[in-house]
């Protein structure tokens, strides 16, 4: 790791990678560091995967601006950077006539925030759009423009595009301190010191720790855990739209939505916890989200659940994001909870604008604007598939049966920059192990491929961070 940079971005989640991608348009030396082994290893990997339309946030807040702009950018970037995005529309269901004014409030917020194609519809109209919706729904806010996105795919797209434009990444690099130095900051890590002119703090649930190293006005971020269950693609046509519930005094409600990969996602719960690493699922939360979702969609086939997981949102005290230059040359992207995923590209764009202005950096002349995703060979028509396999026979060796992922695609995932170095990294890039058998069949083969490609023994292949090795020893 070289140790002189113009910009050091702390955190390789979707916000950090979006900032890196947007900043890589400029002639700047940029380093992204993360304490985990790969990009997309924290909040970015475990969330609702929604591109929110933008009616939730209070008009005038940073959240509102970033949400609406982010949703717009996701549509464009999903094409140029090749990640999965589907405009499937969303419904916010209302179950009580007395709550309809609340729907109208959301509608008005949306209009003020600049959301297009928004309408309040009757329960029957909602059921006409989405037949699975409960008979108890009396009205709904329909946002035709809302979408779903692959949170991993988007983050990898940003990271790969940034890397293609010269951004460097350093993983398993944990920040221990950030000190003011001349002309900027010294980021002290467990891998050594990094001198940088500017710092972007995109450290997710740890953004308060990083912020507090530098700034006098201290902030506190609470990890707000959200638990989900994911259903088999077999029942993926349960709903087409993202189905939310109107927040009530009983809680914010949970969503039932399709994913871009054709599964159904149900969740999240909301539980404030002390441990910023605590991604446990609990029997109580699982039961709660399952029951709550039945209010919206009464016939969810929970016997088709293939996995459950939880993620941590970075919940700040205030209700808004903290974005901007909070100390000279130190830029925060803190308290990025929902709609953080949607907002990420806009947050990146905004920070890049601030830093380019401050630094006076020029735009690159050789900037690469496009990036192609790893091809999903099984989705191709047989002739095209055969052509790909003739070029690379590894594309014909199916490793993950459930998702039809070949050895060639897994090798691609490992060889990308930044590439997969763990089973989870492979899984999130190409979905090997993400299907209904949850990596039962493909784990041995994927371990062997990782070991071969990375030049390490199988016993050193990890599920994610160090310490998560699957194999104990050679017999």
């Amino acid at each position, binding site marked *: 790791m070289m140790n002189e940079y113009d910009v050091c971005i702390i955190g390789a989640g979707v916000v950090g990678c979006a900032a890196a991608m947007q900043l890589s348009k400029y002639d700047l030396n940029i380093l992204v560091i993360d304490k985990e082994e790969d990009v997309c290893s924290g909040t970015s990997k475990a969330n609702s995967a929604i591109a929110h339309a933008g009616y939730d946030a209070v008009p005038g807040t940073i959240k509102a601006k970033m949400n609406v702009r982010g949703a717009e950018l996701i549509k464009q970037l999903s094409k140029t950077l090749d990640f999965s995005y589907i405009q499937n529309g969303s419904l916010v269901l209302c179950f009580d006539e007395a709550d309809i004014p609340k729907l109208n409030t959301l509608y008005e917020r949306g209009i003020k925030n600049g959301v297009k194609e928004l309408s309040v519809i009757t329960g029957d109209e909602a059921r006409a759009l989405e037949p699975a919706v409960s008979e108890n729904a009396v009205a709904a806010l329909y946002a035709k423009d809302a979408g779903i996105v692959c949170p991993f795919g988007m983050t990898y797209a940003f990271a790969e595009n940034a890397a293609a434009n010269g951004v460097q990444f350093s993983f398993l690099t944990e920040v221990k301190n950030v000190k003011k130095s001349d002309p900027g900051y010294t980021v002290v890590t467990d891998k050594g010191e990094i001198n940088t002119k500017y710092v972007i703090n995109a450290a997710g649930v740890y953004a308060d720790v990083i912020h507090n190293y530098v700034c006098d006005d201290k902030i506190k971020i609470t990890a707000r855990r959200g638990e989900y269950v994911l259903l088999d693609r077999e029942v993926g046509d349960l709903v087409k739209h993202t189905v939310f519930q109107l927040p009530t005094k009983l809680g914010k409600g949970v969503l039932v939505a399709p994913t871009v990969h054709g599964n159904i996602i149900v969740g999240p719960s909301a539980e404030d916890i002390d441990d910023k690493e605590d991604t446990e699922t609990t029997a109580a939360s699982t039961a709660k989200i399952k029951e709550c979702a039945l209010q919206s969609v009464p016939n969810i086939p929970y016997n088709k659940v293939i996995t459950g997981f939880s993620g941590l949102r970075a919940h700040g005290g205030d209700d808004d994001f903290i974005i901007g230059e909070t100390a000279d040359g130190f830029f925060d992207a803190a308290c990025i909870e929902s709609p953080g995923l949607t907002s990420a590209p806009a947050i990146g764009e905004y920070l890049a604008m601030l830093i380019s202005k401050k630094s006076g950096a020029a735009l690159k002349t050789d900037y690469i604007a496009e990036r192609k995703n790893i091809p999903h060979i099984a989705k191709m028509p047989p002739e095209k598939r*055969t052509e790909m396999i*003739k070029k690379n026979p590894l594309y014909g060796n*199916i490793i993950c049966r459930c998702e039809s992922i070949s050895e060639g695609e897994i090798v691609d995932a490992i060889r990308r920059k930044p590439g997969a170095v763990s089973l989870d990294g492979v899984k999130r890039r190409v979905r090997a192990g993400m299907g209904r*058998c949850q990596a039962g069949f493909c784990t*041995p083969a994927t371990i062997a491929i990782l070991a071969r490609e990375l030049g390490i023994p199988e016993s050193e292949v990890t599920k994610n961070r160090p310490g998560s090795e699957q194999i*104990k020893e050679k*017999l």
Partner: protein
Amino acid sequence: MKYHDLVIIGGGPAGLAAAVSAHEAGVSDILILERDERLGGILNQCIHNGFGLHTFKEELTGPEYAERYIKKVLDAKIPYKLKTIAADISPEREILYVNGEEGAVTVKAGAIILAMGCRERPRGALGLPGYRPAGIFTAGTAQRLMNIEGQSVGKKVFILGSGDIGLIMARRMTLEGAEVCAVAELMPYSGGLNRNIVQCLNDFNIPLKLSHTVTQIHGKERVTGITISEVDEKRSPIPGTEEYFDCDTLLLSCGLLPENELSKSAGITLDRVTGGPVVDDRLQCSVPGVFACGNVLHVHDLVDYVSEEAERAGAQAASYLSGNSTADGYVKLYTGFGVRYTVPQMIDVKNMSEQTVVRFRVADIYRDKSIALYYGDKHVKKQKKRIMAPGEMEQIIIKKDSFTDGIPDSIKVCVED
């Protein structure tokens, strides 16, 4: 488009026995598609003995048992493709297969035998709470890693579920020097064979904790321990019964699921209980000319029964190919008290062969009860059993000459006193 008389999906015990039997019955144009790099299927990783007692009257290991059938396939020069996955089957019996040599190829089959086997129920489907660290394996995955790849998965192991592979792995890991803390089983009885409980747990002093389940998985990177709880009659954990086990590995042996994604793509009707295709006494599915056998049809306890069933499927496919496809005397089989399912689910009484074997599993442990057979309301047969358990398959034979009163409206199999 290439054509083969018979395409067999899967080169495990079912596919091999079906191929040999079809060949013996005169089918010469057969193709076996196998996704692994060798024939034999799951038997290759079952290096313990106990296979073949019924078929060969001797105790073989899994690979030895497979070898007997592989030799027959090789001797008969039946063509097969390895590292080849069937990606799609259409109701018109067109199969899309993929491999590294040929790419994606569509072939048309005169008849198809489904022999894809089953998969294990994973952690996610069990809804086990806690972290998601490394060190959680289905028993079969751990078995493959140990016995095929030569890798040890853990030193201190807890096993959830008393399915046969879990029991076998309890012994296997003990023999490799690992410590197996205990086996917990949600149900009040084991899901595995009694002989495996004796030989794999009792002989090694490994406790079997019935009516228990895992209620917490500990460890952020690697499993550091698990908490189990006793469950009540509704299978809900009883507060206050928590017990912690220090371990680095959790194996899951919580049920096998017939792997029928291809069957679904072919539009084949599946049985809600078995998870496999609904078949008639010819082992023919709802799509004509498509037959099923082995664990893709229903999960078997012994491979000997897989082979026997597959031989029938092979012979029936041969018969179908030679033009015997009339089916106009179907009678549905009903499950009465204590019987979870039957295979076949219907019998063509008019056109059936001399006799047909009906296999099923019971819903609970029954002592000194009988298996009874009814044609309509008429009690036809009773077969006394000292003990029946859900972990073991039961069977009853229906003979053609037993239909003395003509074709009945229904046939029922049940457990009674």
